[in-house]
């Protein structure tokens, strides 16, 4: 089958899995303004921003010959549950009849999950499937580890852009690795390459750490979030993202009894503020802000698609978290009209704020951390 999938984050892993199952993978191009325009043109005006971008991605993938689209199903109560149906209808209206395979958490609907697996598996013998799964799982973990390193050291690189270039190179190395040995090699080599990057030395106590939380698509896909990680890094802050693929897989795919995951912990932390699931990633966003506060991060950037209801709810909870922990949070809403220049100004001002707070915290000692910082909102 000629398969494709929505472009999100480190795409080499999906590609690898599908290839190992014997499919021809049509790589969707990384979203660009063209993708967004295409998506906006064919999507209902009030649809969420991620839906529009993914829509554009599908058109581009189909253009390149994709016949089957594999995607993960979000689940309600927000609109994520309808993505696949909306996408399918729009595509059909435009004369594209492609198949969709929608993966959901295997615990939610085991039957469909197994059917989907069977379809994807095709004629691949079982042992090969297991090998492929294991390979990819291993690969995700390794890539995530390297990426976390990238997000840390890029803040201090001497030659701007070097870390990103190397990171892209590393992903290409992983793309070419088909055996576990090759994978290990790629990993070791990648680590060495990252370690060789020339860095400014910054005292541990002067390091600024920022967490990124929010709706998964805008958090994971940097082409639509103003390259937030790179932007924060370039302003001298270390970055950690709320979502990494390995965590998602652990949470959604591993059987309950061995499923210890960060996400469970996060969900628990959000209970006092948001006791129920309201869809999207609102509960995670809230829990992650608490988690970052507890771990001593200097600030959080909260990304939400414009008009995303779950994240609007989490945004409204932020002042409360703030009262308890005093962590500065900057909410940025993203859509096709988001003014990059203005958001850039906000992020710069936010980092100024975080830095001076950090300095103050150093000079006052950890004891009386200033709790007056409020939630920074952006309007317009």
């Amino acid at each position: 089958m000629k398969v494709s999938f929505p472009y999100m984050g480190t795409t080499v892993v999906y590609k690898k899995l599908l290839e190992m199952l014997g499919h021809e993978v049509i790589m969707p191009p990384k979203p660009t303004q063209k993708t967004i325009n295409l998506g906006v043109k064919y999507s209902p005006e009030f649809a969420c921003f991620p839906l529009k971008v993914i829509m554009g991605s599908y058109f581009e993938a189909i253009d390149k010959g994709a016949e089957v689209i594999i995607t993960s199903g979000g689940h309600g109560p927000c609109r994520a549950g309808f993505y696949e149906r909306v996408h399918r209808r729009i595509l059909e209206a435009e004369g594209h009849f492609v198949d969709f395979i929608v993966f959901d958490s295997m615990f939610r609907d085991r039957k469909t999950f197994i059917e989907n697996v069977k379809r994807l598996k095709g004629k691949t013998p079982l042992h090969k499937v297991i090998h492929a799964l294991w390979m990819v799982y291993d690969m995700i973990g390794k890539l995530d580890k390297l990426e976390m390193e990238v997000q840390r050291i890029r803040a201090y690189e001497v030659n701007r852009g070097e870390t990103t270039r190397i990171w892209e190179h590393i992903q290409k190395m992983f793309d070419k690795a088909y055996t576990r040995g090759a994978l290990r090699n790629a990993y070791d080599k990648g680590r060495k390459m990252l370690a060789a990057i020339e860095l400014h030395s910054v005292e541990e106590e002067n390091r600024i750490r920022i967490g990124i939380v929010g709706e998964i698509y805008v958090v994971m896909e940097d082409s639509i979030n103003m390259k937030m990680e790179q932007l924060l890094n370039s302003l001298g802050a270390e970055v950690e993202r709320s979502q990494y693929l390995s965590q998602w897989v652990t949470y959604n795919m591993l059987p309950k009894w061995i499923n210890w995951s960060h996400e469970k912990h996060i969900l628990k932390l959000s209970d006092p503020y948001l006791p129920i699931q309201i869809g999207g990633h609102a509960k995670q966003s809230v829990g992650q802000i608490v988690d970052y506060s507890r771990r001593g991060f200097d600030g959080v950037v909260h990304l939400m698609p414009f008009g995303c209801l779950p994240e609007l709810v989490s945004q409204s909870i932020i002042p409360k978290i703030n009262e308890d922990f005093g962590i500065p949070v900057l909410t940025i809403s993203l859509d096709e009209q988001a003014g990059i220049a203005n958001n850039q100004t906000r992020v710069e001002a936010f980092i100024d704020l975080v830095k001076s707070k950090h300095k103050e915290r150093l000079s006052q000692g950890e004891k009386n951390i200033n709790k007056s910082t409020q939630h920074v909102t952006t309007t317009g």
Partner: protein
Amino acid sequence: MRELYLGVDVGSVSTNIVLVDEDINVISSQYIRTNGQPLETVKTGLKKLKKEFPVDGKIKGVGTTGSGRQLVGVMIGADVIKNEITAHATATIHFVPNVKTIFEIGGQDSKIIVVDNQMVTDFAMNTVCAAGTGSFLDHQSERLGIPIEEFGDKAMAADRDVRIAGRCTVFAESDMIAKQQFGFSKSEIIKGLCEALVRNYINNLGRGKKLEPPFVFQGGVAANKGIKAAFEKEINHEIIIPEHYNIMGALGSAILARDGNWNSQTETLFRGFEAADLEFVPSTFECEDCPNHCEVVEVRLDKKIVARWGDRCGKWTNSVNTVI
């Protein structure tokens, strides 16, 4: 010899250039309409400034802020290029050290900055919705046929209160016409408009924030007595308008330039007033070397590229050797 600092605030509507001494006394200040041409505007400003420049003066540092901060920063050779929020807050904290809340309303944008202990702890900024900015008033002054400069006095002369829906400029306009037909005077309508703007502004930007006194109100709109009165009514507290309310962004960047210079005794990057005679040509292109498709801005001086930015990967930025 007097050590002087230059601060430049390049907004989309207007550009301010100030010259201050070490204690931030204003020596000269220029206000020029930007008209979409930041480079030309700053050149004009520099030429004017040169005429007023003290003979014994020497520029020790230059700061730029505002939406054109980067472009103009390259052109004049700025030591500090800072965002508007930090620049504004820096100036306010300098002039009103115990300030807690800053209201800033300019022609095209508006912000609220919350300060605690001389440190920015929170902010919000509105750049899209016109209903909370000065252009809202400009618009209505045109409709009413009353020059904007007279708005303040007119508002103060109103006898009665009238509530005008100010959620959005379009609503405000139709509501205003309706209220006029009800027989409210122009003064009363203007007062109502001022109150609508303030309500809107606070609702939009102040949501979820602790707004505590001392309150400082700055930006071009602070000249309007009607708005000041509306603010005091809305928050039920006195409002301070700093002497230089109109040029706070530029002053802030001058202060940042001074403070940046304080520690390091480095030479300023200022190109000198001759910068006004140099031919800077900005242009943009879309890089297609990777799917990022960055819009890269480049500035040429004598056909030589002196600055580039806008690339995500740094390959263009880094390819420029810093010249002169």
